[in-house]
């Protein structure tokens, strides 16, 4: 979705861009009448697409205005043929062609497309899953309270950790009903997880299994049926029927809407009279599920079965379905012919016992591994150095408590909690012994496992950088300790960059200082002070009353504006990737100089860092000015030495900045990033993955009480920005030359 510039807000549309656009038309010899015709066309568009179309025309006018009227004419035609969303999609598509293939391809496309082709553009592939994936994931997390991922597959099913849905749904022309199918399928899969279809209780399973394997799950159950596929198909239907009751209670709105959809699917299904009897039986069951009532032919085939099935709707458990499956299966098995698997629509959440089993097994394995990893780590830790620990924890040493038990290992005394005990029971205690607190006579200083992990981290940090998790949106979870970040120093530069900048902006700097001085005087009123600018009337009245009452009146009778009260710390994080080479890098550096001037006047604490790097193992974090460092010659030389480096992996430096900011005691902690747009690394850190991780890292910052603000210098600010920055405030600066002036203004607004 390139080119849907957020910068084309309605305001801009009316303002400077419009003028610029008109100028371009004029240059290309449009006369007044032609210009007003174009503007009329634009104004008449639906407000939803107007900005986008205007942006498109504006871009066109830079290259060749003659294309503008033609494009507008096509868009007008299209708006008669395509419903709103498809129209928007088509415009985006055309814009993409312009962006990617250039003006020639665009001209061809625009003049070549006829009504028929346009019409075909209306929902040709239906609703693609990727378009709604993010929202659907939040939706299902809200419904389930679990970290379930959504992924594309040919059928609808779940392996208990992810829900698989078809990549496209195109049963309907309109998006809403296609969307509804997605929601229903996801909800049905969630019901299968939460109501025990695929996560069947061991006790229940054991009642059905003839031999009980070590780790029984649903796959063992299905293995008991000679025709496993037929058993699975029947069971999927029975469960869908059973779970309807549950879903009707939880999501009545959805279930009401989906009724009509089921009927449509039922009507779509061809009747195949020559179907094998077994398959016809399963087909009949499926129709019963879609219809809610048994069809006549089916009744003839099965006697009183439908009644049994409908009993499943009366708050039955998975056990009832399993029992009924036994009966159904035998019945079907007695029919003639082979079972030809029935093709279901996406409306049925099928069961994939093997995949479920794999995930459940993997989960158990991961749990065991974590435990084992912990104990191994414990055994391999360097011998305990009393000194280091005492230094770190001076003043808050604990003593062993008589009621507790401790593990004594490698000179360490570790408090035993239930988790630890579990590991020890599994692994044996090679190298350690358990001691009772009562037997220790208060000697030694015990630590908890958490302390131990912390200590572990400190050691790791000094050895080779800090590890950070990275958000993998595809799995909906973090890759643990995925990236390694190292703090580095910038090589000092030797040209007098700071001095030159100050000279160049000397006029502006004077204004800047004034403005920021004003800001300093704005802070809040302090009451009941010993001295100040004015009487505090409340205090005076109190004092007067007190002295009337024969008390010594207070002397704190004044109010004053407090200057120290401004409690703000700000960290600037600078994109030093290769793509900033040239003007952007210059502008970033100039901005820093101006910001430093302003902040020195203001007295807010600030730090400046830069980042770049290549691949997850080399995230470099450059210190330009720490919070404690004064703005002196050294810092100035570092600013001068800032130069473009490698790639832009945004996540780790954001997370590291947050860590630094969290240690700062100021009340308001501001985090300003300066970058040129897309996060991107040499490896797979690109596109959606990079955007999602950046978004996540910024959300984490917000959750920790830090206020991020993102400044993006980008002429073609893509629509992904809004998603990437999410709830975080950001601004796009399209002309890098404006950055130094804008940034100080932004800061001023942010902090008042």
């Amino acid at each position, binding site marked *: 979705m390139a080119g849907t510039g957020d910068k084309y807000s309605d305001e801009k549309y009316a303002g400077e861009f419009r003028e610029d656009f008109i100028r371009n038309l004029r240059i290309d010899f449009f006369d007044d009448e032609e210009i007003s015709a174009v503007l009329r066309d634009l104004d008449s568009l639906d407000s939803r697409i107007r900005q986008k179309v205007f942006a498109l025309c504006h871009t066109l006018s830079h290259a060749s205005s003659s294309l503008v009227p033609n494009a507008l004419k096509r868009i007008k035609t299209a708006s008669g043929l395509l419903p709103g969303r498809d129209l928007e999609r088509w415009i985006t598509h055309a814009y993409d062609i312009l962006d990617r293939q250039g003006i020639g391809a665009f001209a061809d496309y625009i003049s070549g497309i006829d009504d028929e082709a346009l019409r075909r553009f209306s929902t040709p592939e239906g609703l693609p899953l990727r378009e709604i994936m993010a929202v659907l994931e*939040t*939706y299902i997390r809200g419904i389930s309270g679990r970290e379930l991922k959504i992924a594309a597959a040919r059928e609808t099913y779940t392996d208990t950790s992810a829900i698989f849905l078809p990549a496209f749904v195109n049963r309907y022309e309109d998006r809403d009903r296609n969307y509804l199918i997605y929601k229903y399928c996801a909800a049905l899969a969630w019901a299968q997880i939460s109501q025990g279809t695929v996560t069947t209780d061991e006790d229940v399973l054991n009642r059905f299994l003839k031999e009980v394997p070590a780790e029984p799950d649903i796959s063992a159950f299905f293995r008991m049926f000679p025709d496993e596929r037929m058993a699975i198909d029947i069971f999927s239907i029975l469960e869908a029927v059973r779970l309807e009751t549950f879903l009707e209670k939880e999501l009545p709105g959805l279930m009401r809407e989906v009724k009509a959809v089921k009927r449509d699917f039922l009507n779509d299904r061809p009747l195949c009279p020559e179907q094998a009897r077994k398959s016809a039986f399963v087909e009949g069951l499926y129709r019963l599920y879609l219809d809610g009532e048994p069809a006549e032919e089916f009744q003839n085939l099965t006697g009183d079965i439908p009644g049994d099935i409908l009993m499943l709707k009366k708050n039955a458990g998975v056990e009832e379905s399993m029992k009924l499956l036994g009966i159904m299966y035998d019945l079907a098995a007695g029919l003639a012919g082979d079972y030809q698997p029935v093709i279901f629509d996406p409306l049925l959440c099928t069961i994939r016992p093997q995949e479920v089993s794999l995930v459940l097994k993997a989960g158990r394995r991961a749990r065991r591994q974590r435990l084992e990893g912990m104990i191994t780590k414990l055994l391999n830790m360097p011998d305990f150095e009393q000194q280091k620990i005492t230094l770190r924890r001076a003043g808050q040493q604990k003593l062993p408590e008589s009621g507790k038990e401790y593990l004594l290992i490698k000179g360490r005394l570790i408090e035993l909690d239930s988790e630890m005990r579990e590991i020890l029971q599994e692994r044996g205690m090679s190298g350690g012994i358990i001691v009772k607190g009562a037997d220790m006579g208060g000697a030694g200083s015990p630590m908890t496992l958490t302390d131990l992990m912390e200590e572990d981290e400190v050691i790791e940090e000094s050895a080779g950088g800090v590890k950070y998790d990275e958000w993998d949106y595809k799995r909906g979870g973090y890759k643990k300790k995925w990236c390694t970040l190292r703090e580095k120093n910038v090589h000092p530069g030797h040209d007098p960059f700071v001095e030159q900048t100050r000279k160049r902006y000397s006029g502006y700097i004077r204004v800047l200082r004034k403005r920021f001085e004003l800001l300093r005087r704005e802070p809040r009123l302090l009451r009941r002070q010993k001295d100040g600018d004015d009487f505090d*009337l409340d205090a005076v009245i109190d004092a007067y*009353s*007190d002295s009337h009452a024969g008390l010594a009146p207070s002397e704190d009778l004044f109010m004053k504006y407090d200057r120290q009260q401004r409690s703000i710390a700000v960290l600037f994080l600078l994109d030093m990737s290769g793509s900033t080479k040239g003007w952007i890098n210059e502008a970033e550096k100039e901005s820093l100089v101006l910001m430093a001037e302003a902040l020195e006047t203001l007295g807010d604490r600030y730090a400046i860092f830069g980042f770049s790097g290549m691949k997850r193992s080399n995230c470099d974090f450059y210190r330009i000015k720490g919070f404690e460092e004064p703005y002196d010659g050294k810092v100035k030389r570092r600013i001068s030495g800032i130069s473009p480096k490698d790639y832009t992996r945004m996540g780790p430096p954001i997370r590291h900045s947050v860590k630094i900011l969290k240690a700062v005691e100021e009340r308001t902690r501001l985090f300003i990033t300066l970058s040129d747009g897309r996060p991107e690394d040499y490896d797979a850190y690109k596109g959606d993955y990079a955007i999602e991780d950046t978004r996540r890292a910024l959300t984490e910052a917000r959750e920790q009480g830090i206020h991020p603000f993102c400044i993006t210098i980008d002429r073609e600010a893509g629509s992904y920005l809004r998603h990437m920055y999410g709830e975080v405030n950001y601004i796009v600066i399209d002309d890098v030359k404006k950055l130094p002036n804008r940034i100080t203004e932004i800061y001023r607004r942010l902090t008042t």
Partner: protein
Amino acid sequence: MAKVIKTEEFIIREEPFYLATDRETEIFEAAYRNRIPVLLKGPTGCGKTRFMQYMSWRLKRPLITVSCHDDLTASDLVGRYLVQGGETVWIDGPLTKAVRTGGFCYLDEIVEARKDTTVVIHPLADDRRILPIEKRGEVLEAPPEFLLGISYNPGYQSVLKDLKQSTRQRFLALEFTYPDRKLETAIVMHESGMDEEICGRLVILAEKTRNLKDRGLIEGASTRLLIHAAKLISAGIGAEKACSVCVAEPLTDDHEMLEALAELIRSIF
């Protein structure tokens, strides 16, 4: 003039509607008999204030509620001298008033108050149970009927909004969570007059939003929001719209989150 503090003082004559979710009434009564101050923890809008009203009705004590804010001074709580018609008059603050009358003093959202204000409750909140009034050189001893209650929302994870150990360790803490589905439905029905069908669905919606806490929402929908929505629905606003303005919009500004919430609302209504 001195600041006017929002003080609601009253002996509650009519039984406030309160549905117990656990053994909180029993515990509160035990705290009251043993003169232990009470800390009510929990997310906003889950019934802390209502519980306090209910208990003061039940135990027949007047209730004085102070909504704390960052300008609240110690004198605002304890009292001050005023000059009225040439004479100085001492005016008790709400806390003093409650101590004198043997009532309940409820400091709502205590973390909003300045730290130096919070300390005036310390001597009242331990076994001394005294309130020194420095200006009058007076020390009030709290009668057995006096009870100090404070409320606090641990959900805000800000370091600034945390309750100091020295304060919290004086209190018995009652944790308030959202009531279970049946109970919460009954509450919303009672407060709004809407039917079980609608209220039940609102409660389901609330549960779903609570699942999204820390997954994009800072907090899930409170009972209070549900009551608002139910009232709008009973006033004839469509359910979807009512949920959107009373539940979704107050919770977040994030567009994607709002979209997901809209889908949830549609799926439930």
